[in-house]
């Protein structure tokens, strides 16, 4: 049976939750959470943990050398390093606007890499 102690990170309270397979409607029982968002997060963290990846890439012709970027949706935790590898060689030229899509569907995650700063 899948079971895990998970610290909720949805908000700064940081509820200490226990998530286990059970007879609840979702098939999982979450305890220790203070809100429904925590329950949702707990089940997701047990079954399919995801993260928003934030990093920087090379920037040419800008006033700075690095451009901060992120995935526009959370990606599977296990794909984070693959995405970092793909981003090592990515190079863009200024001007760039915050929100510009720089790579579509990075590492087959379905997420786009977008700029988080206008330079």
């Amino acid at each position, binding site marked *: 049976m899948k079971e895990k102690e998970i*610290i909720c*990170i949805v*908000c*700064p*309270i*940081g*509820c*200490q939750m226990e998530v286990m397979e059970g007879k609840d409607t979702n098939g999982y029982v979450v305890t220790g959470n*203070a809100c429904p968002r925590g329950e949702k997060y707990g089940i997701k963290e047990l079954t399919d943990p995801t*993260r*928003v*990846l*934030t*990093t*920087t890439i*090379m920037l040419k012709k800008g006033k*700075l*050398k*690095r451009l*901060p970027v*992120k995935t526009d949706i959370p990606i599977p*935790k296990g794909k*984070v*390093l693959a995405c*970092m590898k793909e981003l090592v060689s990515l190079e863009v030229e200024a001007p760039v606007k*915050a929100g510009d899509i720089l790579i579509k569907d990075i590492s087959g995650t379905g997420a786009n890499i977008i700029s*988080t*700063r*206008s330079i």
Partner: protein
Amino acid sequence: MDKEYDIVVIGAGPAGLAAAIEARKNSVERILLVERAKELGGILPQCIHNGFGLHIFKEELTGPEYAERFINELVELDIEYKLDTMVLDIDGSKNVTMINTRDGIITVKAKAVILAMGCRERPRGALNIPGTRPSGIFTAGTAQRFVNIEGYMVGKKIVILGSGDIGMIMARRLTLEGAEVKAVLELLPYSGGLIRNKVQCLDDFGIPLLFNHTVTEIKGAERVEGIAYCQVDSNRKPIAETRKYIECDTLLLSVGLIPENELSKRADVKLDPVTGGPVVNESMETSVKGIFACGNVLHVHDLVDYVTEESRRAGRNAAQYVKGVGASDGTVIDVKGGSGVRYVVPQKVRVDNLEEKLELFMRVDDIYKEKKLIVKIDGEKVKSVHRKRLTPGEMEHIILDTNLVKGKESAFITVEVEKEGARI
């Protein structure tokens, strides 16, 4: 005198930006925002991670995105700002002297001043770590700037001393960029940062966090070659027999932030010895009339949204002051931390000037589980809030209904941690 302004805001990080914008929205015309760095936004542009703005924008933004929203608004509102400009002095008449390479040294006259200079990182010199003085020792924020803005990697094998938020965030950042973060050492028995950062930045990558440990020696001639570390006893003294050595080329320090109040002192603003920032009232006004303070210069925050809210309050009240409609003093209540609470901000409350709610911000002195924070007025309990977990690393926040305070000739408000129950 070179020019006159209604409000001069010192520092264009999140606090200064929010304060200046709020002042303009309250119809103040002549505002000058002065920033020492070459760009607006303060520390936010280098905080490329997400998690900013959950309270105010109801979404998770990165630091640069959060800053850009405020910078765009500042520009739309046509608020004057000077970059690359260092404020040297504020005198008792609110004459603000500053220097840059375009204007030279200039002095402007302000009706009100908002202090938003932020804080600085505690450096190696403040820690007395024995050993040599090689390169490869950085404060976490400096490393963050090198990696995220300048584009330099700071090292390959990293040890981090201190579990502050920036240190934990840099542990993840450097791991993603290919470095090996060998350990995070924390002198105290608990983390100095937010839980979410421990979970997402350390646990996710299997980076060990060793409580009750500290660095006892730095080795290396030109470059850091390694560090020795020890477990500490209950008096935080290293236990020699527990000494271990880690080979590394870089040591990051994430050991606390100190509000930067050199200018506040020049202006004779009274400081709180616990927060290291000015003593303020409910309007964010310091002990000097017309000088306001907000953000990390006042007390170190964990969440930028709280900085923004506090700074908006400072901007709004500075606008009132300039227009001459600020409240008279009337009854002033002292707000203090009781047992278990290190400090409370604001430290003073002018009852006649309270808005509908009074927001109190505080930090506790230790880790507590399943405890109540109790608010007392003149020793009488008026409110208590239950917390599953209290830790010094996470700022607490209590909203008090103003009716509890209004119309009473109270002398002081205290907030304390309840004494009964288990303490761990």
